[in-house]
């Protein structure tokens, strides 16, 4: 039967089910199909911190939201157009986000009395007309259809039931005309060694596809044309993968061996996992006994001439603070990646937040300035990592690289850069006591600085004639020997600060996006809010209101023109997923009365709410 095809410019789908239902895998596969198809996309995985929360309960619900379009998009979308609910708990947890008229596909087999009561329902909500009236409801007995399709395959009933996520994927792939080859190849790679399980998954996928094709329930198929993205070769990438690749690239670009000292922590562990795979690039990964040893081992490797990295999240940052302070004092390159999560304390490990900014800047004893770089999108983690490495190596300093849970696990298409387009990070070790031989009389001075960058020489063990001792005790300017001299301390405190401030000379000016050039309101953000702010600004402009947008990659030091930019606008709105940390810095540094917009829910901003907040400021400007 031929079905009607309806063209859409964008769709937001949310797959929701129990943690054991394979929703993340389903979402990932749909994303890959969509990427290959050529849509622009953005994803938001959302899962519980518990590995196996009790099955069928609300805390056990795991979801994956995907926004794809025929044009370039910036966020995973505010509200889904389609919700796939694999059980009552998934329905209960997600229904509130579903706008009226949206498609709702439910697995009716799981709506048993027991499951309903686990989800807090007294009666089956599907029997109630209100859902059928509010939404375009598609009740599908997913589990039993899957089991029936797999009758002839020699697997247990449980394994057959497990394949229901592939049935759902097949159905949705049919509904949106996704190419299936990638998923079939993926299943072969994953289950090729277990022929029956492989066959079951493929059969379930095909059964889902055919179900869409044959059943009356789905009378319309949708088409979302490929987006016209810039020419080039693309892939889909998550923030943690991009960050890992950025570090490997930085190692190659600097010709320094990569050393990662790390302790497992959500949501940073995937960087450790990823880098551990790439030993052929000479990557050394050291899973330390704790966060302190993780950064300590990295600092030791930095002393030895490695491009040294430690990865963690907020609770780990707290523990690393003392060693980062030592790195500030001994002036060695070190990249400290903080994949932020909701805090304080353990907080909500799998949920995103931007509340470690002030800790990154100030969370150490003494005057201890550290450059801070933030990634703006999943693929931008690649470039942010390279930039962090550039600063660390050039200025011999620890650098904090801020990502967050949303960037870490979210994904987007990425135009793969040419290696030749990446910056040269060549690091120079010191080989002689002084670059000027005439000036060599007094021996090696480990704290004599390059006049341009104020960086000290990086003299690594094994270099004859440059033997020296460094440590956390204050050092005499130049010679580097222990010094308690008051004037020297004042000089060293100011010099370390001046070195970090001077990095501003090496970073590009802040660019403002103001298409018509007549905006009086500026929205200024940093980090992972880039997409939401951009999407909100588009909405506001579409509504006829001019608004300017700028986004900070460098949080310390700020770009040199930031003060000028701020003074150009009547009102400045600073949206942050914290209680106003950047706003505090801007007010303190520039005496500008910025307006904070804050939501700290463990989720990215919704474009709609941000647009509303911007409109509000414009109205009163």
């Amino acid at each position, binding site marked *: 039967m031929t079905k009607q095809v309806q063209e859409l410019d964008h769709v937001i789908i949310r797959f929701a089910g129990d943690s054991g239902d394979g929703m993340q895998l389903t979402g990932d596969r749909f994303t890959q199909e969509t990427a290959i198809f050529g849509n622009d996309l953005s994803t938001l995985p959302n899962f519980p911190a518990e590995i196996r929360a009790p099955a069928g309960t609300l805390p056990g619900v795991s979801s994956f939201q995907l926004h794809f379009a025929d044009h370039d998009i910036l966020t995973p979308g505010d509200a889904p157009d389609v919700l796939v609910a694999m059980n009552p708990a998934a329905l209960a947890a997600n229904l509130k986000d579903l706008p009226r008229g949206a498609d709702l596909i439910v697995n009716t087999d799981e709506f048993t009395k027991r499951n309903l009561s686990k989800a807090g329902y007294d009666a089956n909500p599907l029997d109630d007309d209100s859902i059928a009236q509010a939404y375009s409801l598609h009740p599908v007995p997913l589990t039993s259809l899957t089991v029936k399709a797999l009758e002839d395959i020699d697997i247990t009933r449980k394994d057959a039931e497990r394949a229901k996520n592939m049935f759902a994927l097949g159905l949705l792939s049919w509904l949106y005309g996704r190419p299936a080859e990638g998923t079939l190849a993926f299943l072969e790679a994953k289950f090729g060694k277990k022929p029956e399980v492989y066959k079951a998954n493929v059969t379930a996928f095909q059964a889902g596809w055919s179900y869409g094709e044959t059943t009356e329930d789905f009378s319309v198929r949708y088409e979302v044309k490929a987006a016209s993205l*810039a020419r080039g070769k693309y892939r889909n990438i998550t923030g943690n993968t991009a960050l890992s690749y950025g570090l490997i690239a930085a190692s190659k670009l600097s010709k320094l061996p990569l050393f990662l000292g790390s302790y497992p922590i959500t949501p940073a562990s995937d960087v450790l996992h990823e880098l551990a795979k790439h*030993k052929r690039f000479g990557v050394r990964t050291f899973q*330390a006994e704790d966060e*302190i040893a993780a950064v300590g081992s990295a600092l030791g490797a930095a002393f030895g001439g490695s491009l040294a990295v430690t990865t963690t999240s907020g609770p780990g940052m707290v523990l690393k603070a003392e060693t980062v302070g030592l790195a500030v004092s001994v002036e060695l390159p070190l990249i400290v990646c903080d994949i932020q999560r909701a805090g304080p304390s353990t907080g909500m490990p799998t949920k995103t937040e931007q509340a470690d900014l002030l800790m990154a800047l100030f969370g150490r004893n003494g005057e201890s300035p550290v450059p801070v770089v933030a990634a703006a999108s999943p693929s931008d983690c690649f470039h942010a990592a390279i930039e962090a490495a550039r600063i660390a190596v050039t200025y011999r300093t620890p650098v904090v690289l801020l990502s967050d849970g949303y960037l870490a696990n979210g994904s987007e298409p990425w135009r793969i850069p040419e290696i030749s387009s990446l910056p040269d990070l060549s690091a120079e070790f010191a080989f002689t006591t002084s670059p000027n031989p005439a000036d060599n009389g007094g021996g090696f001075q480990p704290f004599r600085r390059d006049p341009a960058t104020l960086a000290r020489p990086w003299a690594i063990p094994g270099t004859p004639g440059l033997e020296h001792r460094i440590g956390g005790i204050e050092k005499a300017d130049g010679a580097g020997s222990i010094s308690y001299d008051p004037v020297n301390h004042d000089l060293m405190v100011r010099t370390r600060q001046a070195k970090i401030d001077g990095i501003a000379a090496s970073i590009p000016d802040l660019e403002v996006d103001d298409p018509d050039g007549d905006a009086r309101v500026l929205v200024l953000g940093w980090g992972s809010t880039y997409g939401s702010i951009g999407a909100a600004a588009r909405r506001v402009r579409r509504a006829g209101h001019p608004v300017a947008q700028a986004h900070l990659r460098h949080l310390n030091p700020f770009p040199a023109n930031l003060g000028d930019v701020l003074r150009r606008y009547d009102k400045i709105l600073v949206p942050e997923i914290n209680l106003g940390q950047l706003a505090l810095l801007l007010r303190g540094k520039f005496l500008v009365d910025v307006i904070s917009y804050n939501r700290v829910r463990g989720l990215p901003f919704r474009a709609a709410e941000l647009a509303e907040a911007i409109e509000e400021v414009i109205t009163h400007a």
Partner: protein
Amino acid sequence: MPNTDIPNGSSRLRSLTLVPHESGLATRDFKSDQEVRWCPGCGDYAILAAFQSFLPSLEVPRENIVVVSGIGCSSRLPYYVNSYGMHSIHGRAPAIASGLAASRRDLSVWVITGDGDALSIGGNHLIHALRRNVNIKILLFNNRIYGLTKGQYSPTSERGKVTKSTPFGSLDEPFNPVSLALGAGASFVARSVDSDRKHLQSVLRAAADHEGAAFIEVFQNCPIFNDDAFAGVKQPSAPGLIRLSHGSPIRFGPEESMGLTLGAYGALEAVPASSVPSSSLVTHDETLEDPSYAFALSRLDNGDFSHTPIGVFRSVERPSYDSLMASQISEAQAASSHTDGDGDVDALAALIAGNDTWEVA
């Protein structure tokens, strides 16, 4: 970057096979220009002198020697040795040294620490460095007191110790550092005494000849806050001092009249050597895979120095962490299809592209 791939020397100590060779160095080459600033009479002077005069025998250029320390009186030592050095933060030296040694196998890396540094604030790093068996040599100066903070009891102070922080006597049981290191699975564990330079240097040499992590407890006198803490074993003729020597029967006491026998549950007992047949006297074997015997030896010392072994308790062969890490990397590189090895731009391009790409024309 200096050449990190040095071929084996001919008769090198085993932990130094990848470290460059240089003979003809003298003690003075390892003295830095810094004025040594411990209290007069501090045991640290003797240990520093023994260390500096031992280093030339390693036949390693001084630029390939790195001394890493934590915080405390002993941790000032790197400033006085003319090599590369890092005076780091409290308790963290084993972690920092592990990262350095794991990434630079051409270095001889030494950790200087104390009882507070290694056993209190840095206890976790110590046990993990030992279990991991990174090629670092850890010297723990045990003076059984906090010196730098002016005299609080330490994790090796005897229970009931009256100090500024424990005016009514300390309540906690002390660690026995040798037992702790053995419990952590250390492959090399030894003990020596600050005042016995010859013995200390022989232990240092054995540590350098060991591939992997070596742990040496050095009894160190702090004349200011805990004078004569080790008086019971300071005299070479001290009756309780048991000098361990691999392959030799254990004899000690006046005219070597005492020996050890194996008692109940594997414990060792001191007995007059003449009271038992010589075949039942214990002969020291530091190479036993099972650490029970070495542990029993360490438990002979019950705080009153009536039986205190010094020397090498345990020295067993185990591949070092850094060598295992290096072979994983070289195997991965050998298996890589990109033959230019890790410098290959194509390999990097292939990595970041992955397998699921599409072209937009």
